[in-house]
């Protein structure tokens, strides 16, 4: 028994090391795609259990397993806002047996701002299943109803807002720099800390990753950070419309870079059907109030490139 597991991990280590070489070669790839999947697929979710992403991933795992006709093993690998899991997947063999279910934010922000061990091009974007609903929000009784009024207000008095990390802060400050106002960011750890601070009046407005959908009567949306408008507030403009940049909202399934196109097509098709699975769609659209927005490999890759270009502008503008 010891010998077997020893040799197995040796192979794993070897294959992780050899991944780029295999990708360039790609000779045996069609055969790989034909009999895929011949063993269980691991779907890594780089977030702590219990959040809406993890909930979504859990239900999706079931649907995908049904579709692929194999066991899909869910592996949670939280840390560093998703970067730990992403790094791990980026080092695997691009054979389709290790996939990552993540918000694209986790794959883009870290490599743009620091040396983290994986780059912007480390992944094959296979498909998008939904969009996070990122918004600028305020309390329902706040003295401003639109972004314009908020900016006018901020010129009279210095306002505080709750961010949930460096990237939202950069985007909110980007708006500030475009409009010639400055505001103070209060770092909060996730929506669970932001909501009481906002409702309790400790901050004036806030960035929200989607939790505001649970409080339609207590919070109002001022701006969508997505490239399009939010499904719950179709009258509110998006950041792309106003400033030509947007935050990466797609919730994506990716593999390590260098996956064989036939394999990508096969997994993409399975994801497409799985994303339309009743239990998954019910959870996403009815319970989490996210849109059902499947986008395939080609369109998604182009969309991500566009988002990256916008993010680079924001990073450049807010860097001091």
């Amino acid at each position, binding site marked *: 028994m010891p010998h077997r597991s020893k040799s197995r991990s040796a192979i794993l280590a070897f294959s992780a090391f050899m991944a780029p070489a295999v990708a360039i070669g790609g000779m045996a790839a069609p055969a790989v795609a034909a009999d895929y999947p011949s063993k269980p697929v691991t779907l890594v979710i780089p977030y702590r259990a219990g959040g809406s992403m993890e909930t979504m991933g859990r239900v999706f795992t079931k649907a995908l397993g049904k579709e692929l006709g194999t066991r899909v093993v869910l592996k*949670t690998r939280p840390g*560093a*806002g998703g970067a730990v899991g992403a790094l791990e997947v980026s080092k695997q063999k691009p054979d389709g047996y290790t996939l990552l279910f993540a918000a694209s934010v986790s794959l883009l922000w870290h490599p743009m701002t620091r*040396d983290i061990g994986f780059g912007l091009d480390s992944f094959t974007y296979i498909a998008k299943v939904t969009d996070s609903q990122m918004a600028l929000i305020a309390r329902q009784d706040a003295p401003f109803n639109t972004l314009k009024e908020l900016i006018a207000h901020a010129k009279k008095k210095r306002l505080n807002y709750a961010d949930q990390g460096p990237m939202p802060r950069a985007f909110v400050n980007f708006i500030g720099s475009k409009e010639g106002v400055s505001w103070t960011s209060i770092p909060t750890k996730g929506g669970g800390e932001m909501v009481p601070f906002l409702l309790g009046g400790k901050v004036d407005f806030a960035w929200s990753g989607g939790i505001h959908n649970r*409080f339609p*009567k207590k919070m109002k949306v001022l701006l969508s950070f997505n490239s399009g408008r939010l499904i719950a507030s179709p009258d509110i403009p998006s950041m792309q419309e106003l400033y030509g940049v947007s935050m990466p909202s797609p919730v994506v399934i990716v593999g390590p870079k260098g996956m064989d196109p036939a394999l990508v097509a096969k997994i993409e098709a399975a994801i497409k059907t799985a994303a339309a699975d009743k239990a998954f769609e019910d959870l996403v659209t009815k319970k989490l109030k996210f849109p059902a927005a499947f986008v395939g490999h080609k369109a998604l890759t182009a969309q991500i490139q566009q988002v990256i270009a916008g993010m680079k502008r924001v990073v450049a503008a807010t860097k001091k």
Partner: protein
Amino acid sequence: MIEQLIAGFGNALTVTNLLFIAAGITLGIVIGVIPGLGSVTALAVLIPITFYMSPLAAIAFLVGVNKGGTSGGAIPAILLNSPGTPEAAATALDGHPMAKRGEAQRALKFALFSSVTGDTISDVLLIVLVVPFAAIALQFGPLEYTAVLLFAFALLSGISGDSPIKGLIAIAVGVFLSTVGLDPVDGSQRMVFNEVELFDGFPLFSLAVGSLAMASVLGQLFELWRAKGEKRLSVEEYSRIETRLPAREFFGHWKTIGRSALIGSGVGMLPGLGVTLAAFLSYGAARRASKEPQSFGRGNPQGIIATEAANSAVVGANLVPAIALGIPGNIAAALLIGAFIIHGIVPGPFMLTNHGELIYALFASMLMANGVHLVIGRIGIPLWARIAQTPRAIILPPVLVMCIVGVYLPNQSIFGVGVMLAFACLGLAFQRLGFPIVCMVIGFLLGGMLENSLRQSLRLHQSDLTAFLGSPIALVFLALTLFVLLRALRRA
């Protein structure tokens, strides 16, 4: 409300539901016994099983898991002095000395009874006060949290045992360790050396299991080794000396029970403070209120009562922010919220109006679960006590392996296991040199929270510390802090 609750009992009191609660509690206790695994992991693991249940059965089951998982941690803490969570470390402080002098069963009973009582009190408070509680929780901003945490530090310095200076050193080490990781404000690296796994700092579970449970087990193994098997160190011959715990004796400690349950409920209703803080605040308060504080840490049952009543009281109260505001009070509550969502219930201010029937059935299930918990826990005690009768040489090595498994399971990180092993070394060194390792763990936990709140406050108020004067809640806690510190100084 009473009618709604009665209707709730009508819905919840079915055989299936009771079975699910019982199964949940049993599984929760069994998982909670493994060092490093508590209610959080138990919930995360068992939520997928509930996909196929009706919403009420699912939630009743998970409530049972949460209760069982929280109280299960006391068992290894008392029997083997190998607490898997920081809050169980507070139980071990007095529980293990009791077990050593032959009162293992009594200690377990104290733990179970206080757990159930604390939980019941907190559940009743939850049901009666869910709406006003939520309003109070909203008053807590960065300033108020800072004040509460300062108060917690002041109380903590009081429980550090015989040598205050060593306790303070341990706290300082813990606080220093808590600063490793990405900076909470600007995300720059702090002593991270570009190691991605360290971005979030040292994983709490690795640190706690390594320095508390594993170090203690290793220490005991070294003792055995040094004794060379000639003098077998075992507690078996003492474990049956005194097993009885009459209800009258237990409820004789009603003051401690009540105080601890209130502390636990108060901490539980504030998002983010958590079980550990409740346990130690309550332990500190009990020690402070006692006429003979020296007896704490030497097997005073009040130590067990204070800890267990408080940490179980958090479980019920934690649902206050979840139900009233839709925000989780801690990770366990976040998992429960996730489960609610899967079953079509959106937590938040409208949960009571939209799903009133289900919520009251949930309340009823929680109260029923306390009864079931008592029965199942009571059946388990003689079984667990058998562990204390097995020779240590047999029982300890498997615990070592369980520590590894327990730390590996939730995040599947070998790095996490490595950190645990490193802290096992540090923990043993601390233990041998007489530094209270528990203080280090709590310092680690509270240090991060205090830094976060303080730096939020500084930014929010432009470094103007007079802002504290504008917050009555913060002022009350600052005054309490001052009071505790002055009293400690006067005694010293």
